[in-house]
């Protein structure tokens, strides 16, 4: 599959994470300066040059578990803390949102426009910080450099790689259900009306030619959809009208972000296999995480800035309940690390983790699967 998929996956998921955190910070009435600090810290960590360098190296995608670990670290890059249940919910929302966006992209290349939509909105969050703005613009330039010249076939492969990553994920999100973009069985609605992708003709016409290339006959057929021509192509410049709405911020203070666990579905068999089977990739994933997070430069919080806990649910009780009732096959089990087999790597990773010392907070280990970071810290 494509080795150029990770930057797009990471940036878009990261963008969704910021949208959700921004909404929750406002819904929970966190003071403006604290909220801004959290977003600034996370964005500045995300777009750090060393981190981006690692990200943009051609590489295969790793598992959802491995990627979640990176986002968990990113979410804790500031004074904010999330419990396991909230982190699980956050990751579910992020992944379902981007899955939706990839599926509905008219052309495979439009996933780049979706990425630019995310970056444009991220820049809105950090308008007052010129240094971070510069980092984001630099990432923009890197994206244009690497993806600007890719062919339609290469974008098709990237799209397939992303869809494979999201295969069989059917978490129901109440906002999607309400907006009728998702069905009750967790599948997204694929509309058969609206504008066709840029470069595609509206279906319905059959043209026949002779050997000289002259059209000799033309007929029409009823194709079943209700399509119209594409109005214009979205802009791939640093600034411009993207035209596509996918990837823009759909959350606002008044739209609570609830998820429903689909629980046991027909596809749970294949997903259970993924989470309980012994993971032969553990060593590779450790390497990947070490490289990626080695590039993350998380600032030690200066001064006695008090931290706070963000809740993705409406009440603490709801959060506790969610942690207890999360279906087995949907839990993000920790990567089964054979610490004894690769002590050198584990030590390196522990060292990197050690550099990420966040505020000393009482560890609220609510879920049974403590994450990779906890295990490493305790080595």
């Amino acid at each position: 599959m494509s080795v150029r998929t990770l930057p797009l996956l990471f940036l878009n998921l990261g963008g969704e994470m910021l949208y959700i955190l921004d909404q929750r910070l406002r819904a929970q009435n966190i003071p403006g300066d604290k909220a801004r600090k959290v977003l600034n810290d996370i964005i500045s960590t995300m777009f750090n040059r060393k981190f981006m360098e690692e990200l943009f190296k051609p590489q295969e995608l790793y598992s959802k578990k491995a990627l979640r670990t990176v986002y968990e670290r990113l979410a804790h890059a500031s004074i904010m803390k999330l419990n396991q249940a909230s982190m699980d919910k956050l990751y579910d929302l992020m992944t379902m949102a981007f899955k939706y966006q990839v599926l509905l992209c008219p052309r495979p290349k439009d996933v780049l426009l979706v990425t630019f939509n995310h970056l444009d909105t991220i820049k809105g969050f950090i308008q007052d910080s010129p240094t971070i703005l510069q980092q984001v613009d630099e990432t923009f330039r890197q994206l244009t450099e690497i993806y600007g010249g890719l062919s339609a076939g290469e974008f098709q492969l990237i799209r397939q790689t992303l869809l494979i990553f999201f295969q069989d994920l059917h978490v129901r999100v109440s906002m999607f259900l309400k907006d009728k973009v998702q069905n009750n069985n967790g599948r997204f609605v694929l509309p058969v009306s609206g504008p066709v992708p840029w470069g595609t003709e509206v279906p319905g016409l059959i043209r026949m030619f002779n050997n000289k290339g002259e059209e000799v006959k033309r007929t029409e057929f009823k194709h079943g959809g209700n399509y119209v021509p594409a109005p214009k192509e979205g802009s791939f410049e640093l600034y411009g009208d993207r035209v596509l709405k996918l990837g823009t911020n759909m959350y606002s203070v008044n739209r609570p972000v609830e998820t429903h666990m689909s629980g046991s579905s027909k596809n749970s068999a294949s997903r259970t296999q993924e989470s309980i089977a012994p993971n032969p990739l553990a060593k590779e994933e450790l390497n990947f995480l070490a490289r990626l997070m080695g590039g993350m430069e998380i600032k030690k919080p200066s001064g006695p800035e008090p931290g706070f806990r963000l809740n993705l649910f409406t009440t603490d009780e709801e959060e506790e309940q969610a942690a207890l009732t999360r279906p087995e096959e949907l839990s993000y089990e920790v990567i089964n690390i054979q610490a004894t087999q690769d002590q050198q790597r584990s030590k390196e990773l522990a060292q990197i983790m050690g550099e990420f010392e966040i505020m000393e907070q009482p560890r609220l280990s609510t879920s049974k699967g403590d994450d990779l970071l906890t295990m490493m810290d305790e080595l």
Partner: protein
Amino acid sequence: MYRRERSIPLRGSAAPLCNNLSVLQLSARKLTYFGVVHGPSAQLLSVAPEGVPLAQRQLHAKEGAGVSPPLMTQVHWCVLPFRVLLVLTSHRGIQMYESNRNTMVYWHALDSGDASPGTWSGRVLVFDIPVKGPNIILSEELAGHQTPITDIATEPAQGQDCVADMVTADDSGLLCVWQSGPEFTLLTRIPGFGVPCPSVKLWQGIIAAGYGNGQVRLYEAATGNLHVQINAHARAICALDLAPEVGKLLSAGEDTFVHIWKLSRSPESGYTEVEHCHGECVSDTQLCGARFCDSSGSSFAVTGYDLAEIRMFSSV
């Protein structure tokens, strides 16, 4: 004209790869075999008439060199005059099996010397298959494409008018038309136009090609002349299939639609003509594979991304 029949359940949903469905009909035994790729494995099912599933098995992509388990890219039953081989491809290589047994008869590893995994060189590999046994040899490597090959179509050359018997398509939309013989000869090239050509079929000297912009184009194989252009789908086409007995063409797209077309030659001009026969919408499903289940086109099957079943349709 076609109505929906009972679906066949799959153990795992179909991967979002093009041409992700292979069908083998064994009319003598009244059985149909289906093959669908899911992740690192191919699911193979045998089905009795009326869609009653009989047996299911899975074959995995061979590990080969490399660290992570390979993803499978295609499963296909190759019907040769004297035997049927099941061919599985992954980024590591090509595996061939006897159609009804799990024994692998041949393994061809692809170069891991490619600059980065997933770079496909565009080579077409030609294998000599003996009447029986595992003595399969790579006999030729055809150069003609610079981007990854997406599909290959063949047809036994018939008569003097039809000299072409193989077409290969690639990610750039280029089609290469070949003539078989002691060695393959490149007859003509039909350039792409900026979108991949994921699926191609050959029938009576007519090439049917499905493109990433939703168009189906029909060309005369001998000359490469464009004869028909159909604005068939609103998204990329993922699969084409032909029912050779009647000249019916099936196209499936990521726009959730399946269309059936009738190909013919105009009696006056001799040019290819097309008529739309039937359209079917598989709601909210991005299709990835579609095949006729018999050579007369009286039934067809489709697979879709995230869909854990094979949807069946038959004519009324």
